[in-house]
């Protein structure tokens, strides 16, 4: 159990007769930032609700911070967990400051630290306004602030960046990096895969309640066997095309003097060296997570 914040073993969850998650194994370690990826209805939110103890598994075991989350439903462990629900709903009649005060008291945290937290998510100016009048992005930021209350050891964030503008989004990831440095475990769910790139240590890809694949993004690239593509614009066809016996595969014309080729990751340097000096607008297109996802989806079905 050393270092494992969340362990799920053979977990199945049902809503009535609908099976939301089947036979899920998952482990989150301390200081790790993990992306939980899948379409709507893939079971991401259900997995998070199982970790929070809002839902009991029909089969299998869930352990969070060394305890079963559903046992004794007021488990003290919840003080160390921060949760941001998908499309967070808050009490519209309370102001931002009151909302955070309410949640801080429930968590047994000093209310005095709240104004700094509101400052951190950029809501200091709106703290005295009612949440009912907040924009979606402001509600999301307030939701994030409540999840950060009391330095949680485990943060479960369900679609955290929907509705955030790019500036706040960058700030949000910076906050997450600081929390990780302090040893917190972070689970981010998302259906916008490209967004997690560069933010997470590894991703868990889910489809229809099952885990399809899991690993660091680079690893998944290798597994999916989606090769990098190189694009360049040339005034006239490249030497490789003009002068055959060239080991490079053929460059496909894309029109407007642009060409594209595909190669292995290890051959990128060679391919670039072969480009004539007058080539411009050179791009290396690595498969995005979306493409990887599509490849795994195809493999799974």
């Amino acid at each position, binding site marked *: 159990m050393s270092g494992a914040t969340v362990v799920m073993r053979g977990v199945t969850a049902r809503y009535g007769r609908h099976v939301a998650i089947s036979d899920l194994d998952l482990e989150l370690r301390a200081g790790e930032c993990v992306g939980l990826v899948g379409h709507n209805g893939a079971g991401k939110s259900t997995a998070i*609700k199982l970790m929070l103890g809002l839902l009991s598994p029909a089969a299998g075991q869930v352990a969070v911070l060394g305890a079963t989350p559903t046992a004794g439903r007021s488990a003290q462990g919840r003080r160390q967990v921060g949760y941001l629900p998908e499309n967070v709903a808050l009490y519209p009649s309370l102001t931002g400051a009151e909302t955070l005060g309410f949640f801080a008291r429930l968590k047994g945290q000093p209310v005095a630290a709240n104004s700094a937290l509101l400052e951190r998510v950029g809501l200091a100016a709106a703290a005295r306004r009612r949440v009912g009048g907040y924009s979606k992005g402001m509600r999301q930021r307030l939701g994030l602030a409540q999840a950060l209350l009391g330095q949680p050891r485990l943060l479960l964030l369900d679609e955290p960046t929907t509705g955030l503008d790019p500036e706040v989004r960058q700030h949000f990831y910076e906050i997450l990096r600081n929390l990780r440095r302090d040893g917190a475990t972070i689970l981010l769910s998302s259906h916008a895969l490209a967004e997690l790139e560069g933010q997470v240590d590894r991703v868990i890809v889910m489809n229809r309640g099952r885990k399809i694949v899991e690993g660091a993004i680079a690893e998944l690239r290798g597994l999916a066997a989606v090769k990098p593509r190189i694009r360049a614009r040339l005034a006239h066809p490249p030497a490789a095309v003009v002068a055959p016996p060239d080991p490079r595969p053929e460059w496909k014309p894309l029109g407007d003097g642009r060409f594209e080729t595909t190669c292995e990751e290890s051959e990128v340097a060679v391919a670039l060296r072969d480009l004539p000096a007058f080539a411009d607008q050179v791009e290396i297109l690595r498969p995005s997570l979306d493409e990887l996802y599509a490849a795994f989806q195809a493999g799974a079905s």
Partner: protein
Amino acid sequence: MRPIAIIAGKELRDGFRNRWVVATTALLAALALTLAFLGSAPTGSVKVSALGVTIVSLSSLTIFLVPLIALLLSYDAIVGEAERGTLALLLAYPVARWQVVLGKFAGHLAVLGCATAIGYGVVGGAVQWTGGDDGGAWAAFVMMIVTSILLGGVFVAIGYLVSALVGDRGAAGGVAIGVWLVFVLIYDMALLGALVADQGRTISAGALNVLLLLNPTDVYRLINLTSSPNVSALAGVAGLGASAGFSPTLLVAVLAAWILAPLVAATAAFARRSA
């Protein structure tokens, strides 16, 4: 205890914010003042306490209005939060579900208590000030306010039970109105009809007493309309109160049981509900 107090405080604040307290206080006070001053016209000739008459008319008002207000306040408590999505977040905090129910109950009871105590208290004061008669009816008047709040508590608890059992808000509202109709109107009419049809052949006095205790509004009526000989003579239920022979303590205990049972059932239903 702390989470209960925190949630209760939030509900009370909500009650003041969304004008529930102000609106119900004004409504109760306005109706009660109307009843008190239109209804106390005969007191001059009959030589009874003005406050006594007011107790009778306010009891009848309470039986109609307080359960309705209580159900409107409570039917949405669990199913509404579940539907709006605030419940999942609340339950992710270190709060047990029974604490959520008890906290909300304390808060809603406080909202109702404020409205009733202020609304009726104002009327009691006004009647006393204008009528200026005996202080003897004051104990009965205070008893009426306290039991009105208890009656509200009964229907707040029943509202939570509905809210915990029913799947969506609309249905919960419908069931709540049904509960109100049954306890406030249909039950007594059906009981009366049965008594008339039966002509005293099978329904004994003892059975009738039990049947009265099975409806919290009848328990409330028994407490307040038989609270003093003066009042029961006015209410025309002297015979009923005397034959029932329940002590006020027992009746209040029954009312308390009517709060406890639905509250426990609501907590149990809520515990089984998926958030």
